[in-house]
């Protein structure tokens, strides 16, 4: 039985635990063993068997006392930008190597043991997951602790910045994981690894305890195998955090699993999405998008039609402008957010320095990797005297125009669909010397991020080299339920999300 524990998704495992077919300690041990067996993937940055098992024992005791919270005893793992008391938090940076937070991020607490009078869903933390340094990157090759690898082809990137999260879920090391998405960092790695991920509306999940990259864009979300599992995790993660995060939305948490199996109002069981209008932005299907990705996405859209949805053409005319707008706004905020890493109160301090200024400069350049320093320079420049209006202000104006384009598009459709990325996962190192080419590859995920819209990546088949392709679904603000429902109905009719990489099958037989 425990041989197959890793084959279970979040919902299955939660049910098995609730039914007493397996204990949290058993599940945790089995998955920790599997994590060790796949160290080569580079998915985990921190594992602490004692800490995880202590949490698992607590979960089993809570169960014994008759408690049953939705995720009680389910092992999950957190992207290493969520601060945790029981595990070190590095954000993939040498700057924070060995850093211990005195508190848990709100999202971590709500998924786990709870905090601030919030009960907590009872999940067990299996460890901390690799990511691009300070969540800056789309290949997880900007991690100071080595790259995470794509379980479908270890020579390929898992995507980023939540690469460790997507790789761990795809490799069946954990049933579910947290990620963060600033410009596509949940959706793109989910697509590259053939798993399901959702970035909620900006402000849905508290940012308290998330190591900040770009404050007006950062948003936490789950990565799991299915929309159902994502719904379970998101239900625990979401909700206002009035005492800790001034930008968390004043909207009560929802049970995102409710009604997932039901057809839309007035639709039949056979055509459950009858009446759903899916908008296809012409700008998402241009020459920039590779043929294999287009083919897989088109096939998935055909499936949606079979499920009753109607496809309509829409336009997001400023899609290309999302790249400069995002890569000005995000680095600007990052250059300020990373000012706190000065080697005074925590983090890396250079071993040798002549004076205060020298200590700052050495500590920061030793502690930050190249991509982080590049974005700090860009951000410092666009905020500096005489350039603010031409760059930062202009980018924020364009950001509003992009958001308004979406509002206009949503007058003609209920959801927007398209590719997550122009290509499948690239080889590790391919874009290392050409950061700009990596920026350009974010083109389909950046617009929704700038507009603060919820977006998903749903496994939609395979492209070149047998690598997964993700279908991106974008909803209006607060329409997470609509997204998850459409994705779940699609996954009832397809099995892309159940496909596991061969390497995983092998390690199962072994």
């Amino acid at each position, binding site marked *: 039985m425990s041989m197959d524990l890793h084959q279970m998704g979040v919902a299955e495992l939660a049910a098995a635990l609730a039914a007493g077919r397996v204990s949290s300690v058993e599940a945790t041990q089995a998955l920790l063993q599997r994590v060790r067996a796949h160290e080569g993937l580079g998915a985990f940055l921190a594992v602490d068997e004692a800490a995880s098992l202590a949490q698992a024992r607590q979960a089993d005791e809570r169960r014994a006392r008759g408690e049953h919270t939705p995720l009680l005893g389910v092992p999950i793992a957190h992207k290493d930008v969520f601060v945790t008391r029981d595990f070190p938090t590095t954000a993939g940076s040498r700057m924070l190597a060995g850093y211990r937070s005195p508190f848990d991020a709100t999202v971590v607490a709500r998924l786990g043991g709870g905090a601030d009078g919030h009960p907590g869903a009872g999940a067990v933390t299996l460890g901390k997951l690799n990511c691009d340094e300070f969540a800056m990157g789309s290949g997880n090759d900007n991690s100071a602790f080595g790259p995470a690898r794509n379980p479908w082809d270890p020579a390929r990137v898992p995507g980023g910045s939540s690469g460790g999260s997507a790789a761990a879920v795809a490799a069946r090391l954990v049933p579910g994981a947290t990620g963060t998405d600033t410009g596509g960092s949940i959706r793109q790695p989910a697509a590259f690894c053939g798993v399901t991920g959702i970035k909620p*509306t900006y402000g849905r999940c508290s940012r308290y305890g998330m190591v900040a990259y770009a404050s*007006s864009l950062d948003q936490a979300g789950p990565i799991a195998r299915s929309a159902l599992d994502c719904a379970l995790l998101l239900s625990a993660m979401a909700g206002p955090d*009035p005492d800790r995060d001034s930008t968390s939305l004043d909207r009560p948490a929802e049970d995102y699993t409710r009604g997932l199996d039901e057809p839309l109002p007035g639709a039949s069981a056979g055509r459950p999405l009858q009446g759903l209008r899916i908008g296809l932005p012409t700008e998402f299907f241009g020459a920039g998008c590779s043929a294999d990705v287009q083919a897989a996405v088109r096939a998935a859209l055909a499936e949606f039609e079979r499920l009753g949805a109607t496809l309509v053409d829409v336009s997001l005319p400023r899609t290309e402008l999302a790249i400069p707008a995002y890569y000005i706004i995000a680095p600007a905020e990052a250059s300020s957010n990373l000012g706190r890493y000065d080697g*005074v109160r925590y983090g890396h301090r250079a071993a040798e320095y002549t004076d205060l200024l020298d200590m700052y400069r050495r500590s*920061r350049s030793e502690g930050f990797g190249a991509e982080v320093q590049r974005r700090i320079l860009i951000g410092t420049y666009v905020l*500096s005297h005489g350039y603010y209006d031409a760059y930062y202000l202009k980018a*924020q104006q*364009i950001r509003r125009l992009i958001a308004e384009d979406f509002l206009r598009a949503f007058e003609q459709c209920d959801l927007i669909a398209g590719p997550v990325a122009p290509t499948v996962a690239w080889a590790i190192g391919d874009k290392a010397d050409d950061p700009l080419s990596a920026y350009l590859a974010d083109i389909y995920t950046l617009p929704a991020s700038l507009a603060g819209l919820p977006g998903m990546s749903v496994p939609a088949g395979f492209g070149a080299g047998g690598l997964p392709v993700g279908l991106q679904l974008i909803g209006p603000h607060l329409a997470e339920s609509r997204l998850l429902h459409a994705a779940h109905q699609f996954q009832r009719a397809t099995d892309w999300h159940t496909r596991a990489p061969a390497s995983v099958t092998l390690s199962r037989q072994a």
Partner: protein
Amino acid sequence: MSLTLQDVDRLAHLARLALDGPTAERMLGQLNAFFDIVEQMKAVDTTGVVPLAHPVEVFTDVALRLRDDVVSEPDRREANQASAPAVEDGLYLVPRVIE
């Protein structure tokens, strides 16, 4: 317009980064490549467009949430300083600050 090495040095100083010569050169090239694609923003007419500072502004009124004036943070100096590079008598130590 395109940046110069002097610009990169000034920015590195403002941002408290220490870039050696080759790194600064490489950064210069990458920054200028990036700002080439930024140029297309100039063509966009944004007169009268209100900058979007908080993305949720487009669908809901945003107003700063205010908290009651209550003290509820106990002294956690020990835990807070556990990761500090240099501490003495509860103070963080830094190279001499001259005013």
